[in-house]
């Protein structure tokens, strides 16, 4: 069946010409005990399976994935919440490698200007293998601050700032003596509740080897945008349904996480100042749980608009769109695009004083624990909408550009906000179909969407 070569008529991959079967009930499995469990349990027609039962949907953690994915058979309809080698995007050292490679490729194919669009990642060097390259760069820029981060840890652990080579000489002496036995660091524990509740740990099998951590040294952004004198970063959610072709959705809500203390470069040792991660903030002596230290993105967007005007804000947000798309494109060829997989990423973005956004990192398992009532609602809606897009119930047609709070951002090509065939005469009027920080009237939209889907089914049957 021929279809016009027009991206607005391209589905987002769910319907493949044949009818997808509707299931009577969907068996789900997960080990996470937080908002996700609430959402799954309340979903009509979904039943929980425990232990060894067969499942149709598994929101797994990454350690399970690593151990079991390769020898687990999955029927066509089955879905799982991670890509096998997601770490190509989420481990800082791999991400840097992939981005650098992609940038080179872009420069070859499209020129310097296009390649410059990848310059949203602060200069990073892998340690210890790129140590000498790092020293060269370090000497070229005396006096600037650098940050050392472990590649696979989360919640701000193991991070320190430095300005002198001496600080890392000591560190290097410590690890250079150890043999590089394993390049895989201890499993990422980003889903553990900071209060210390247990998670299925499998560190026992690491007992015999000395765990060697890889670090990256990264140029520290010394001029972050401050609000109320405080540093903050943005948490944004991106849902990837497939890599080949690349299909990604952007959630409208998210939040800005504030550091509890005022920003100043003179206190490098005070990790509470520099790390905006909520987990670290929670241990700061200043931390008051009632404060929450988060702003919803809508509030942040309004604040910026009242200060800088709507055009500057538009530019900032479209620069952020660029970060999401380019970062995903850079790992497109590397990630094993299994049709069973989808992944909800948590992007951490830092804005500097020139309103340029920087990518700090991408999380494969963003925290789903709620720190406040508002946060609980955001995460609940986020997860509900994620499940709508995954569409185990086979309700969607595959041509939707918006599902609840998710907007289809990339569908093997940019997605336009406008309806109908794109303006073929030029890309001048192109407006991206992203609404980060905008009004999220998801309830209305979902109601209309499902009603019209029901009507369509009635008509066709």
């Amino acid at each position: 069946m021929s279809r016009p070569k027009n991206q607005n008529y391209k589905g987002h991959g769910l319907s493949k010409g044949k009818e997808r079967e509707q299931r009577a009930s969907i068996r789900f499995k997960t080990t996470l005990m937080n908002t996700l469990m609430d959402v799954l349990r309340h979903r009509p027609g979904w039943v929980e399976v425990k232990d060894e039962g067969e499942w149709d949907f598994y929101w797994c953690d990454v350690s399970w994935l690593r151990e079991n994915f390769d020898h687990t058979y999955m029927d066509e309809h089955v879905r799982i919440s991670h890509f096998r080698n997601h770490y190509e995007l989420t481990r800082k050292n791999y991400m840097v490698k992939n981005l650098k490679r992609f940038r080179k490729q872009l420069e070859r194919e499209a020129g310097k200007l296009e390649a410059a669009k990848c310059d949203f990642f602060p200069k990073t060097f892998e340690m210890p293998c790129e140590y000498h390259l790092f020293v060269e760069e370090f000497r070229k820029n005396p006096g600037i601050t650098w940050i050392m981060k472990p590649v696979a840890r989360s919640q701000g652990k193991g991070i320190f700032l430095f300005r002198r080579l001496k600080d890392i000489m000591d560190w290097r002496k410590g690890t250079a003596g150890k043999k590089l036995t394993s390049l895989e660091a201890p499993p990422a524990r980003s889903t553990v509740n900071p209060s210390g509740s247990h998670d299925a740990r499998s560190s026992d099998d690491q007992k015999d080897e000395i765990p060697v951590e890889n670090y990256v040294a990264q140029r520290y952004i010394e001029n972050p945008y401050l609000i109320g004198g405080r540093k903050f970063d943005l948490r944004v959610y991106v849902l990837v349904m497939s890599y080949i072709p690349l299909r990604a959705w952007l959630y409208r809500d998210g939040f800005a996480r504030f550091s509890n203390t005022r920003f100043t470069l003179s206190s490098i040792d005070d990790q509470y100042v520099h790390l905006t991660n909520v987990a670290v903030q929670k241990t700061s002596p200043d931390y008051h749980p009632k404060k929450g230290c988060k702003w919803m993105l809508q509030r942040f967007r309004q604040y910026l608009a009242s200060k800088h005007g709507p055009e500057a804000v538009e530019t900032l947000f479209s620069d952020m769109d660029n970060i999401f798309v380019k970062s995903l494109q850079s790992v497109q060829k590397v990630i094993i695009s299994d049709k069973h997989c989808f992944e909800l990423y948590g992007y951490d973005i830092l804005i500097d004083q020139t309103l340029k956004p920087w990518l700090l990192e991408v999380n494969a398992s963003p925290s789903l624990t709620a720190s406040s009532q508002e946060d609980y609602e955001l995460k609940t809606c986020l997860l509900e909408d994620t499940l709508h897009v995954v569409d185990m119930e086979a309700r969607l047609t595959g041509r939707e550009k918006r599902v609840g709070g998710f907007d289809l951002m990339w569908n093997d090509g940019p997605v336009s906000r406008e309806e109908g065939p794109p303006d073929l005469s030029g890309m001048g009027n192109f407006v991206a179909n992203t609404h980060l920080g905008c009004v999220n009237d998801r309830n209305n939209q979902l109601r209309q969407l499902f009603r019209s889907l029901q009507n369509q089914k009635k008509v066709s049957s």
Partner: protein
Amino acid sequence: PEHLKEPLVYMRKAQGSWEKRILKSLNSMCTELSIPLARKRPVGEQKELLNKWNEMGTDEPDLSLFRPVYAPKDFLEVLINLRNPNYENGDSLSFRTHLGLIQVPLKVKDIPELKEFFVELGLTTGQLGIDDSTQVPPELFENEHVRIGQKVLAEQDSAAAQQYIRQGSPTALRAELWALILNISSQPEELLYYEQLKTNVIQHDLLVDSLIYKDVKLTASNDDYYFVFEDYLYQVLLCFSRDTSVLGHFAYNSASPPKSYIRGKLGLEEYAVFYPPNGVIPFHGFSMYVAPLCFLYHEPSKLYQIFREMYVRFFFRLHSISSHPSGIVSLCLLFETLLQTYLPQLFYHLREIGAQPLRISFKWMVRAFSGYLATDQLLLLWDRILGYNSLEILAVLAAAVFAFRAVNLMEVTSLAAAEAVLADLSTLKVMPLLQIFLFATVT
């Protein structure tokens, strides 16, 4: 001249005795804690404070012994007991009897008069807060409105700005428009004056400073959105207490600045000073007048000037006893009258279950809804306060909120339950509520 402050004698008397009570409370706190009302800081302490000026919020002084001098509900009790000695209400109940808490005969507007007064909020006039919502194409109203706003700013026409802002201010233009309407300039003298106040703060410590700290910690710091601006609040409020130019507004304020005497010279006028220097004793929630402004102004001296002007034009009326149409007494009466006249069933029901509506709405009006509405909605509301140069819109909004939640309120059977229905206003859209209440309700 007293009549300029307040023409009605009984109001003046009531304000006078309220002030005596506040001052007594302040003085007794002072004696109890053995803290002087004011003291000069030692040099070491001055240096420390100067270094910490931009992050005073990190300080955690022991404030457990301090209590706010009063809270809005204390003030409400005073207003409830206000009586005009020349007015005989008569014991017989008639349809004219006012069933609310306020029992003074002040003239307040009814809906037809409000419709005339707030004509620009009508259904056929474009509004920001309604006609800029996502479903409305911007060509219909928003674009043109923004263009006019830019023109007004270019011409620097303060009167035109005031007229313009009745339909709401575009987010990007609001800071400048407010400054234009309030006649705030960025003259170097103003910056200098602010710096002087700052020096004052560094050199002397006032007892009210602790009250300000406590208030900020209790209210703004706990707010989900305003906590970020904590430091700015100290920078503004501490300077505000020392600003003697604020004393000027007492010429038209029914209140008078409290006087204190230098130690040992009680009663001797030559040794009388106003305390605090600006004559304004903060109460619980005072810092919320400043918090929303932090959204618009980031330069401390500008923020300060805007706040000071807002205070001496509007906010002072919300906590002094007067007969002014924008005074809190009139606002309370306006609120109750609107409710009793246009929602009699609701009003009667709430009264019967011991939930007099004013007991719930009073705190909203005293704070000009700051901390109760979402910030963007609050700013749209304050746009209209500036545009109409009146606080009456606060009473109208309060009544509109009750009207909106009337169905739920009719089902409650206690004051606590009524409070619960009205506890969360953060989802309300202010302009549609006002429009419906004034222009679209069958009366």
